[in-house]
């Protein structure tokens, strides 16, 4: 019972961004949402985070409808947005305290949580450094730490590795997978980079607003007689990426 999406459609005027999406995330797993740019990933995220209102269909998170119980749902959700949402001129601590306050967590309660999360990312010593002094990889880690502050059950990440070098991407991906294993966290990781998807990950391939396939990567390859997920993705979407 993590995230369930039923018959979801969304359009910007006459342009259909999402059509008849049905999706259930595997609990405690690294779920990949794979799709090229413009496939509708960001629209889906905007709907999941209540930036846009539902037009058709239903989303429930942890068993609660997002339209009817927004507060409960948002409490269970941690989000990392595609663009950085950190205040560059404030310190890591100030950014994290702000987020904690938005969830009704006082500074005193937040501090142990912050130290714990930062320690996981080897950023403990930089608590009072301004975000501006951090490199891109570290900024992402701070954002992930922030998304985990209020101990959500589900973590959404929209293209978290965008703009990072391959080594950083790799380590970030590994970190998130460790989190899944250690904390039974359900993760939805949206990406257009196929190499970030592992063979036993549940994968959903989104293309032009529709779901083309949804299963673990290895099983999808079997079903479609593809050598690997990369070949599969190309044959399904007709892209050369």
């Amino acid at each position, binding site marked *: 019972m993590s995230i369930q999406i039923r018959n979801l459609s969304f359009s*910007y*005027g006459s342009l259909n961004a999402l059509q008849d999406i049905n999706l259930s995330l595997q609990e405690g797993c690294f779920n990949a949402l794979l799709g090229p740019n413009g496939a509708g990933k960001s629209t889906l995220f*905007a709907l999941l*985070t*209540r*930036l*846009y*209102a539902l*037009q058709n269909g239903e989303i429930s998170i942890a068993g609660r409808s997002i*339209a009817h119980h*927004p*507060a*409960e*749902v*948002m*409490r269970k*959700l941690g*989000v990392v*947005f595609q*663009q950085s*949402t950190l*205040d560059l*001129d*404030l310190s890591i601590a*100030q950014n994290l*305290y*702000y*987020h*904690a*306050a*938005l*969830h*009704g*967590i*006082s500074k005193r309660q937040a501090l142990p949580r912050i130290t714990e999360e930062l320690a996981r990312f080897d950023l403990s010593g930089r608590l009072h450094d301004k975000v501006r002094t951090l490199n891109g990889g570290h900024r992402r880690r701070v954002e992930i730490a922030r998304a985990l502050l209020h101990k959500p059950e589900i973590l959404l990440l929209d293209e978290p590795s965008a703009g990072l070098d391959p080594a950083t991407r790799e380590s970030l991906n590994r970190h998130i997978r460790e989190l899944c294993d250690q904390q039974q966290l359900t993760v939805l990781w949206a990406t257009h980079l196929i190499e970030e998807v592992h063979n036993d990950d549940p994968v959903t391939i989104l293309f032009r607003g529709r779901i083309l396939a949804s299963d673990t990567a290895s099983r999808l390859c079997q079903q479609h007689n593809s050598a690997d997920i990369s070949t599969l993705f190309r044959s399904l979407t007709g892209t050369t990426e």
Partner: protein
Amino acid sequence: MTLRDALICFNGLLQRELLRFVQQRSRFFSALVRPLLWLVVFASGFRAALGIAIIEPYETYITYEVYIVPGLCAMIILFNGMQSSLSMVYDREMGSMRVLLVSPMPRPFLLLSKLMATSLISLLQVYGFLIIAWLWGVEAPVTGYLTALPAFLLVAMMLSAIGLFISARIRQLENFAGVMNFVIFPMFFLSSALYPLWKMREASEWLYWICAWNPFSHGVELIRFALYQQVNGQALSIVIAVTLVASILAVRGFQPQQGMGKR
């Protein structure tokens, strides 16, 4: 949402605005330059222009500099309110507003808290300006600086709420320049900020009516009276009513239920 959550949340919002304010000291000073130019350059030239009639709440003849100080305070609030409201709307799909909107707190509470926090920051600039005006020789009664505080806050809430409503609803005002030209300038110039309404009436009757209907005029008058330890009942009720209506409309514009597609 418990009261404790609400307090923590509001406190967090306020602290963030404060920190940003401290970080951007240059913005603070540049925000002071505009009203000070009005006061020092513009008002000095017209120094004796108003020594013709005594208008409430003043007890005697005043120089033009004394007259425009409440209007200039309101101008600081107007610019700040519009600026922060506009950034709230244009940042909503990215950046800090998204962080705000994924909070489990009710959105009306979040938005109004944010408006309140930026309003309180505006007050710092207003009092900064009043101190400089005082050094320049434009004084109000000492207790007036205190009695004006709730007026400043209320007017700040009104103007940010109007700003939020306008920028959420009227897409054509795409940037701050648009808001300057079509909202801030008309609001400021067609009000009692620079000239008293009787003076406007001497110029033209319809100009007078526009100014009399402009909520900004009532904000200015509320501040003007409060600075002289008086309550202008009419201005107060109009400002409260406009604040309420604009807040409701602005908050509705931010409810996901209202939907708002990608621009």
